[in-house]
């Protein structure tokens, strides 16, 4: 156990904090490029955050402290999760056995506060969004936890840093059908948690079809900046979960490992999301649970294979 503590590094959490919004910038640029537009500058998400931070928030009289606490708790939970998320074989700032369970439930905590803050507004739109979010996350959470359990079993380590250190240094030696299933399951969770197509459409203006976006409609100013920044961080760290599985970087040179990891972290999820959003339409909302149940089934299968 002590070995994990000795490996700790600040670089995964620092790169998450500073580079996460860039991920959105890259995705938007890829989408614009594919549809023949020039697109906004890559740094646009930072400009937007800066703009929001300088505004003041407006609060509806029907809301209580829960509404104000939502963005803070959400961002806090994600920041904490970022501290236990390694970057490939570079260990996280904090790691301890079983931290992957904490990771899953930090995400759940953030979501819980977003949901009750949405319900606090009393708006029917936000209520609908909250109900959808609760329903879909109830299905994606087991998929994520079981997938991570399968990885833990495969790597023989039960902390995220330990798991990914073994996975990465293995240079694909640990590739197994189970890991392919885990990858698919986590990818579906990644799309769901980050409200991307085919589950949700982050660019739509149609309240009736929204899931995540509709829950934060009433937030403005710094609150919205926290939410947007939290969303970027969430995408970054969930992207790390995926990249850690498929990126076998193990050069032995620390700075090279880091550079490659950062480049892949920025481009990998962005290209995958950009291509998916360009090539397919959203699923009908009724069909989303089927996709999530499929992710859950993949995770269960992966776990069974590993337990064999």
């Amino acid at each position, binding site marked *: 156990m002590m070995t994990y503590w000795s490996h700790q590094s600040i670089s995964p959490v620092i790169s998450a904090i500073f580079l996460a919004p860039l991920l959105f910038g890259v995705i938007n640029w890829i989408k614009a490029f594919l549809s023949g537009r020039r697109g906004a500058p890559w740094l646009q998400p930072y400009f937007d955050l800066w703009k929001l931070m300088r505004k003041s928030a407006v609060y509806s009289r029907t809301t209580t402290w829960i509404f104000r606490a939502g963005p803070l708790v959400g961002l806090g939970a994600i920041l904490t999760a970022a501290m236990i998320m390694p970057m490939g074989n570079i260990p996280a700032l904090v790691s301890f056995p079983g931290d992957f369970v904490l990771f899953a439930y930090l995400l759940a905590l953030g979501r819980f506060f977003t949901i009750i803050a949405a319900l606090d507004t009393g708006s*029917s739109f936000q209520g609908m969004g909250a109900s959808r979010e609760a329903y879909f996350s109830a299905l994606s959470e087991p998929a994520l936890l079981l997938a991570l359990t399968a990885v833990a079993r495969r790597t023989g380590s039960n902390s995220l840093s330990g798991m990914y250190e073994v996975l990465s240094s293995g240079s694909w030696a640990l590739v197994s059908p189970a890991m392919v299933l885990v990858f698919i399951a986590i990818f579906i969770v990644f799309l769901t948690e980050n409200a991307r197509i085919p589950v949700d459409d982050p*660019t739509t203006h149609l309240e009736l*079809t929204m899931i995540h976006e509709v829950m934060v409609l009433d937030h403005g100013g710094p609150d919205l900046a926290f939410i947007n920044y939290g969303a970027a961080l969430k995408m970054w760290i969930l992207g790390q979960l995926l990249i850690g599985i498929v990126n076998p970087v193990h050069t032995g040179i620390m700075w090279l490992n880091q550079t490659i990891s950062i480049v892949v972290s920025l481009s990998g999820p962005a290209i995958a999301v950009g291509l998916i959003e360009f090539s397919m339409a959203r699923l009908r909302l009724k069909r989303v649970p089927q996709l999530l149940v499929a992710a859950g089934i993949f995770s269960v299968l992966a776990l069974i294979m590993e337990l064999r």
Partner: protein
Amino acid sequence: MIEHDFLSLNNAGCAGMAEIPVVDIHIFRNTVINAVTEGSRILSLFVCPVDRQMRLFAVLGHGGKSRIYIVSSIIGDAYPSLTPACPQAERFEREIAEQWSIRPEGHPWLKPIRFHHFYGGPADVWKHLPADWIPPGVIDGIKVESDEMHEVAVGPVHAGIIEPGHFRFQCHGEHIYHMEICLGYQHRGIEQALVGGPDQRTIGFMETLAGDTSIGHATAGCQMIEALSADNVSARAYALRGIALELERIANHTGDLGALAGDIGYLPVAAGCGRLRGDFLNLTAEICGNRFGRGLVRPGGVAFDLSHKAVTQIVVRLEKTFKQVQSTVSLLWENPSVLARFEETGKITKKLCLDLGLVGPVARAGGVERDSRFEFPTGVYRMAHIPVATCHTGDVMGRAYVRWLEIQRSTAFIRQQLQNLPIAPIRTKTGQLSPNGIAVSVVEGWRGEICHVALTDGQGRFLHYKVVDPSFHNWMGLQMAMRDEQISDFPICNKSFNLSYCGHDL
């Protein structure tokens, strides 16, 4: 036989007011209901005070016979409602109640539609006094009362850049039991403003009845003035009007297909069609300098001619744009994730289309061969026919596909017309309107059938001008299409109808 009970007219035909049969209201009711059962449909149903008496006029159209039938009856402050036997009269009767405070007895659900004050005296049928403010959207709507149900109210201010309208959904989770639409926020009183015309402003009103249907409504209005003044319009002017009308159709259908793709988050078609719509609008601007065709259609013909060089240019640009639309739109039909969203969504049956008297691509997508260019041809459509595009599914897919078929057929039509433009002057001078006359003008706009009816007084001025935009018929269709659907599918259903708010509100 139907012919004996009615005054029978051609589209864009004119008759003397004295020729319209005036019958007892019960005979009126039976005659109209029988005619609708036998395959006619209500083009317009309105009340106009004639010689200090309230007269109810029914204008019916029979597509197979290409004839328009008119009958009238003198009524007091109430009459037996047609709606229970003939649902397509529903909105017309609410309109009559609102405008003239005449109660259709037995109307299943009498609600205001535009929330304006009664044209005549003190209190209307809902006891609104002239000094009262009539809050728009406040109606006695359906309420499903249960702890498990919830009501979602959308609008009148929407997230997108669209017109104001208020929608109320009665939902159980994601499932819609009923949806109700309240309009009237855009009511400007155009019909009232047209009385006493035609004058300089008349054509301006026509072009802005529904801004995206400028050519359609302006053509209907000009056809009306020409019918009442017995003017002849040259073949070249007719051809140019037809070209402009079809360009309007293509531009709007292309935009709709892009918007449908946008609503389901399918990027390539949303981006492509959004741009290509503009290219078609620019072709209209090439003809008259305005992308929506304002200033082009004028009583007696058109205001702008096309030079030989302009014709060649338009043909080349049309071909180029059409090829791009073809390659963009084909992505829709090839992508399973798109088809999964379009198919079986917002379904309406053929029977519903016929009962509610739906028009335009909505009705055609439900398998009804209803197209005024084919049923009541006027102008260039008497010489050149466009095949009616239909589909049998009645869902979003059907409505999208009918639009694509119409884009193809209208492009072929424009190409053919441009290559054979008749040589003639483009505009003739219009004369005085015939006094004490009535005329009906029907045009197939891109949303469907546009019907204008005008009555003139003893001086040849408009005594009454009745406009029916296709949206007036079709809003009810959208309401019915949403039953038992998912609330998250409302936006694509709505977009697949793409109805006009201001065309309805007038």
